[in-house]
């Protein structure tokens, strides 16, 4: 579904991603871990098409399309969803309105009619149960005054409503209490199916206790330095990232700038 080859990206001339290779097939869940500043959010943003990143080399192909050619909204309509590490507040715009406009834009892209108000409300009421949010949140401004945890739940609500084929969750677990973590994980798990892939960025093994990944990758300094199955996350938990650096496989990566 998603194939990233030798992806290099820089911000204002500073290289951040230095040769990422990643293949995600439909139905798979990949976890990406790695120290602060290693480039995890940058990778997510480059996939989503955020301005300000120059892709200096490499390819990103999503369901047969060259993703890097498409504007942000088209990537979204093609089925890419990014749950933000820091969800944005939009004063005066109700959650419900954003959801409805977003869903209808995506439906339009797929050649479907707008959902009627009734159909939409029915759908939303179903989905909001999934993330155990109160209905009043629908009528509040997008993320305005939401607690950290509420914002993250709201991202999962959007995910559930928009039903993308590739969901990238950027540290959706950070800032969540243990109950909220379970709610979010349940929400995500209920969306798992053969058609859908997920990339879960996290610092903590505990999320992966609930969302069991098919593959785990470790990023450091703009590269994927180690990949493995779910047991890799457990090892990281035990030994920390320093352990990776000593790993001969990881050390094989050339030092930056060479």
């Amino acid at each position, binding site marked *: 579904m998603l194939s990233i080859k030798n992806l290099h990206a820089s911000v204002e001339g500073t290289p951040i991603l230095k040769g990422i290779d990643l293949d995600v097939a439909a139905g798979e869940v990949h976890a990406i871990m790695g120290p602060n500043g290693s480039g995890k959010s940058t990778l997510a943003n480059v996939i989503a098409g955020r301005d300000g990143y120059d892709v200096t080399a490499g390819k990103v192909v999503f369901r047969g399309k060259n993703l890097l050619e498409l504007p*942000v*909204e088209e990537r979204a*309509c093609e089925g890419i969803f990014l749950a933000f590490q820091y969800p944005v507040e939009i004063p*005066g*715009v109700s959650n419900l*309105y954003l959801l409805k406009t977003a869903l209808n834009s995506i439906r339009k892209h797929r050649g479907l009619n707008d959902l009627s108000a009734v159909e939409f409300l029915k759908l939303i009421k179903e989905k909001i149960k999934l993330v155990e949010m109160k209905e009043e949140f629908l009528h509040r401004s997008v993320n305005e005054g939401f607690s950290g945890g509420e914002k993250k739940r709201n991202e999962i609500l959007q995910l559930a409503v928009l039903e993308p084929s590739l969901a990238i969750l950027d540290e959706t677990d950070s800032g969540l209490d243990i109950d909220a973590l379970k709610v979010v994980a349940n929400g995500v798990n209920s969306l798992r199916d053969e058609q859908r892939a997920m990339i879960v960025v996290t610092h903590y093994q505990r999320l992966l206790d609930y969302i069991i990944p098919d593959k785990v990758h470790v990023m450091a300094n703009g590269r994927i330095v180690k990949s493995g199955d779910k047991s890799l996350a457990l090892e990281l938990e035990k030994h920390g990232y320093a352990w990776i650096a000593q790993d001969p496989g990881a050390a094989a990566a050339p030092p930056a700038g060479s």
Partner: protein
Amino acid sequence: MGSPANDIDRLVKREYKEGFVTDIDSETLPPGLDEGVVRAISEKKREPQFMLDWRLNAYRHWLTLTEPQWAHVHHEPIDYQAISYYSAPKDKDGPKSLDEVDPKLLETYEKLGIPLEEQKMLAGVAVDAVFDSVSVKTTFREKLAEVGVIFCSISEALQEHPDLVKQYLGSVVPAGDNFYAALNSAVFSDGSFVYIPKGVRCPMELSTYFRINAMNTGQFERTLIIADEGSYVSYLEGCTAPMRDENQLHAAVVELIAMEGAQIKYSTVQNWYPGDEQGRGGIYNFVTKRGACRGRNSKISWTQVETGSAITWKYPSVLLEGDNSVGEFYSVALTNNWQQADTGTKMVHIGKNTSSTIISKGISAGHGQNAYRGLVKVLNKADNARNYSQCDSLLMGDRCGAHTFPYIEVKNPTAQVEHEATTSKISVDQLFYCRQRGLSEEDAVSMIVNGFCKEVFKELPMEFAVEARKLLEISLEGAVG
């Protein structure tokens, strides 16, 4: 060729001889302004003597005034002798059908979802070719007459209710109030008159009617609304579609009077021609709007959405005379391309326990310049006066400007005056967030801007709010990127 003054003299005499009614269809005074013109206007409208005297006073006062220079706007000097001050409705001059109308204008109507019949009217297609507006008027009139509401043009009011006009006209905005108000007082062509009797809640929003009524009120419009004790009226002014209009200068005056316990809600959506992308053409909208809360417990709310005009100069104000009276001002002003707006309000606290709220949202895009100018004045007898002001500016791009000029004058120590101001840019984070959810850049901008304006839009009557939202969208087209 004679001088303009001579031409007018000739014209006035000729009309006097030939009578006014017969050639009303084709009549326009030649450009120029002097006492003869003022007399001619009054005479054409067969006004009572007091009205002529009032106009002449205003004119003489106007001669002593100069244009205000303090507004944050720039334009070429206006040649007041180049304007024609009287032009009777001339259906014949308009396009014969929509085929003759600028397609760009029609496109906008289409986007706003304006019914075809109304499109024709707005585009100035001969009214009699549209539909029988007289019958529409009559239906409304009958319904209003049942409860004693008077709603007619100010010319009609001068014929049918001269005492009411005499009593209230100029009682809020005196003839010599300012340069443009004085000019309006001297030469106003027409406008609306509303009287709501004691204890009556006006059974409908005075809007659809006005749309029809407003077509030919011309550039010097005069509106007078009186809400007698315990009455209520919601009045919608203007039109969300750009109107075909050749007049460059609009200098309107609106006066509102709320007696004890009365409430007036006055909503405006102004979308006059703003000029093109290069800043050519467009209306100068220099308006004086003021309401007086005369009685105790009375309330006046102004809500305005200003997206049109090349230059807007407008400060809907409230004089809070009665104890416990309430004044409100909710405003959205948008300037795109080369538009300039200097707008705001004056809240003058005179009675005790008076309170006022000001919510102003300015949006600048392109090379637009947007200024909020507001005065909160608390006089020494106004015990326990309260004001809350919030002025937010939103900038799109880096060639536009936003300016805030809040003036506060407090002469009573018990007053509580709060002022908050913010300036923000549409954030790239917000845009990215919306686009990542599948919205186009334009939809994302319009959603964010609408959110920014929400506190004002929620004050607008329902169907007006929907149109205002669409209007904002259209006005912002091409503002991003």
